[in-house]
């Protein structure tokens, strides 16, 4: 454990070692980080923010399709993490915990939106035309983002966790509180819907009929 504690002062090598750790070692390292956070260690807080905030904000953006909402969710997740630090359970993983909190916050926001809300116009709607000709990467990204944002809530959540956040099927199922079989079903329905909505784009980019 002591060698893991020394990792906090480094940056990239730390991430490489932590991501390569076995699950048990990662949990132990997270528990030590949280002990330091509870003790007011600024370096530990900064390390966690650097390591986890980009993923949480990206996840919230995938769910909410709004930068401001995604940043609000990211901030709320970390405020709750700081408050929880003094009673952190050593069997928990910070990344999984944060995604569970973010999931709940995102679902609350999605359900609070009026049905007529155009998903914050997705911040994507600037491109009103369909795919045609040689599309720039930014336009392609908008079309893909819009397709993902158009998925039903639970399918979007499953796709976001597995395909964008790179969680294993078991971890994603835990975050969603569903069985692995249910997760697979949601993923399959989500991907089928995406295949349909991105068919035109696929033909444009890949030159397929």
């Amino acid at each position, binding site marked *: 454990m002591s060698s893991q504690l020394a990792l906090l002062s480094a940056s990239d090598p730390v991430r490489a070692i932590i991501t390569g750790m076995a699950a048990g070692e990662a949990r132990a390292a997270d528990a030590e980080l949280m002990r330091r956070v509870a003790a007011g260690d*600024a370096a530990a807080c900064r390390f966690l*923010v650097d390591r986890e905030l980009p993923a949480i904000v990206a996840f919230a953006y995938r769910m909410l399709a709004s930068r401001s909402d995604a940043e609000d969710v990211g901030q709320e997740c970390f*405020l709750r993490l700081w408050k929880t630090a003094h009673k952190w359970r050593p069997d928990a993983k910070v990344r999984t915990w944060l995604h569970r909190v973010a999931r709940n916050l995102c679902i609350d926001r999605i359900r609070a939106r009026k049905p007529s809300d155009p998903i914050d116009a997705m911040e994507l709607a600037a491109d009103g035309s369909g795919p045609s000709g040689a599309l720039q990467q930014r336009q392609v*990204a908008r079309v893909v983002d819009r397709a993902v944002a158009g998925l039903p809530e639970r399918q979007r959540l499953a796709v976001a966790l597995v395909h964008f956040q790179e969680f294993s099927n078991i971890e994603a199922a835990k975050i969603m509180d569903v069985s692995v079989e249910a997760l697979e079903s949601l993923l399959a329905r989500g991907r*089928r819907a995406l295949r349909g909505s991105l068919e035109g784009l696929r033909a444009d980019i890949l030159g397929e009929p």
Partner: protein
Amino acid sequence: MGADKQMDLDRLGELLDAYGADRGRWPEAERARARALIEANDRARDLYDDARALDDLLRRAGTIEPSLELKAEILAAAGRPRESWIQALWPFGAAWKPASALAAAIMLGIAAGVVLPNPLGGGDEPLESEIGELAMSTVFEQEAEE
């Protein structure tokens, strides 16, 4: 899940539908058999290529990076005192212990007040001021006799 499932085109289709063509996402127990089927079967290969094409599109999705202001706000919040007023009053551990002791003391005090007799007396016993008057009256009586 999946360890006892037969790997055929149907199951491979389910895997590709759910997880796409990235083999690292497939359930570990089915990975080797799925890979073998793709290498051995043309139809399986088509399914795999189809899934990979969708994966390529999804990789083109946009993303955002958190702003520096957001990071700064979160780190500033980490430095703020975040204990509750109970923790501020009792920073030595679980607050239920002193709270329980205080509550017990209050209850004991109320019970004692109701059940036990007044230590200063009560009812027909003279009050303190009356005791003083009695003492003084005795002195006055003695002085009068003298």
